[in-house]
């Protein structure tokens, strides 16, 4: 209902002639044969232009995010387990976490050239530090009771890590992933916008260059959709069911 109202307001402004149509394109109804956002979106999906870009973007995200998770878990474990790493690396990671990942882009361009690797690099950087911090918190907060129970049963070393420490920190890890994902997603968009080698961000840049706001807006719709679906449908759901099973109170 609220969304519908927003749509109506948008359409009204577009039709009012307050702004040129190419700056403020209509959502659904075209009056003088100009492109509509909805039309471009559907057309783009059918022709594969938007779909292709979205798939490229998502595959980059998946790779970068996966690397970040593995790195984050490994670093987080070192920090949680060894005092030395906590005092040294822990501090650096906290500092790095507060640096927006797009800041790394100039460096990445020089190191890897403008392209795929540079974009992957900043996506990974964007998610790694958050993942490191949350996973080290998760590992540090494994209840002593679980560890004692497992140790009296004879578990130790890697078995203890795999069967107790990792699963016991899952609630922290999931929340960490959710935040890390959000960072990675933002970093990726910024990277693609500047990196110019395909993907949704590049499509945005193209829309700007062609003065075609209908394309820009329809890409924004897709970006928003992917973000919402991942956050609300995937992460929030997993987080809730994990919280319930792990016996924590569910936030409503």
């Amino acid at each position, binding site marked *: 209902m609220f969304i519908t109202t927003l749509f109506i307001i948008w359409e009204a402004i577009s039709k009012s002639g307050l702004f040129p149509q190419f700056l403020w394109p209509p959502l659904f109804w075209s009056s003088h044969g100009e492109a509509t956002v909805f039309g471009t979106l559907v057309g783009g999906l059918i022709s594969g232009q938007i779909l292709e870009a979205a798939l490229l973007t998502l595959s980059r995200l998946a790779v970068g995010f996966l690397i970040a998770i593995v790195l984050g878990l490994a670093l987080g474990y070192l920090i949680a387990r060894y005092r030395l790493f906590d005092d040294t690396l822990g501090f650096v990671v906290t500092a790095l976490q507060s640096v927006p990942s797009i800041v790394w882009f100039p460096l990445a361009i020089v190191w890897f050239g403008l392209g795929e690797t540079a974009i992957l690099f900043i996506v990974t950087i964007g998610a790694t530090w958050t993942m490191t911090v949350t996973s080290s918190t998760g590992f540090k907060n494994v209840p002593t*009771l679980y560890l*004692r129970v497992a140790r009296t*049963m*004879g578990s130790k070393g890697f078995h203890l890590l795999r*069967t107790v420490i990792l699963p*016991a920190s*899952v609630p922290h890890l999931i929340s960490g992933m959710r935040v890390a994902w959000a960072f990675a997603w933002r970093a990726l968009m910024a990277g693609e916008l500047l990196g110019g080698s395909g993907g949704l961000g590049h499509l945005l840049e193209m829309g700007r260059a062609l003065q075609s706001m209908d394309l820009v807006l329809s890409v924004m719709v897709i970006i928003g959709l992917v973000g919402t679906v991942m956050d609300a449908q995937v992460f929030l759901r997993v987080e809730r069911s994990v919280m*319930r*099973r792990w*016996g924590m109170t569910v936030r409503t």
Partner: protein
Amino acid sequence: MQVVLDGVHKQFRKEDGQVLQVLKGINLTVRAGEFLSLIGPSGCGKSTILNIIAGLEQPSEGSVRVNGKPINGPGIDRIVVFQEAGLFPWLSVLDNVTYGLLLKNMPRKKAEAKAMDVLRMVHLGRFANAYPHELSGGMKQRVAIARALVMDPDILLMDEPFAALDEQTRIVLHQELQEIWQQTKKTVIFITHNIREAVMLSERIILMGTRPGMVKQEFVVEAARPRDPSDSVLVHLEKRIMAGLEQEMEKVLKEEMGDDYRLQKGVVYHDPLYHLGSDI
């Protein structure tokens, strides 16, 4: 003698460098198949004794031998049931119980069959596929006991296992624990601060003194099983233990609240003249 503690001392160094003596010169022997309770005021180091026997903590001085061998870390001949059940929430009840068996490299089929037997013993056969968050406190503690029993340890170490449960559940679990102990004849070292619980379950009760923790008195419970809380032997014994415990509690309270504190009834000072004339 299955468990022998010989001159065990334990001290911690606090942050401010002060040394805190937790246990002092503990000599204790436990027979195979005995049900022994350790009772004492909080802070008397009874849990520390249990953790030392479990191999989770090391004594500062003295030796601990189990079946004649000095202990070296945790071992599956000594399994602990803690006050909190400590079930792994990511595993089903059955997987929780088989956890230790699979660690011993027992084939899964065999482990599950064995786990089911023990779960039936604690009357939880129907809940094998449930997850811990679906169980009540008493049921969780039953699973914890099953998880310990399934390992078939020589010694069952129980650290106030029923302290967090409500009275009815506790009574039922006392009954079950008695039956299990009679069936399996395990050595049980049971920690509690509940005198009734100690008298109902044990063959021998060690009353511990506090600050530093030491063995103060020993009581042998000579009552028929299954035990009846109204048995005059038990009632009398309860009183004797209470008397001993009160002295220790007073010591703790005095330390915490100052020298003028007295636990005996009727010692809170009322000035008889305070209200004089206030009704006029």
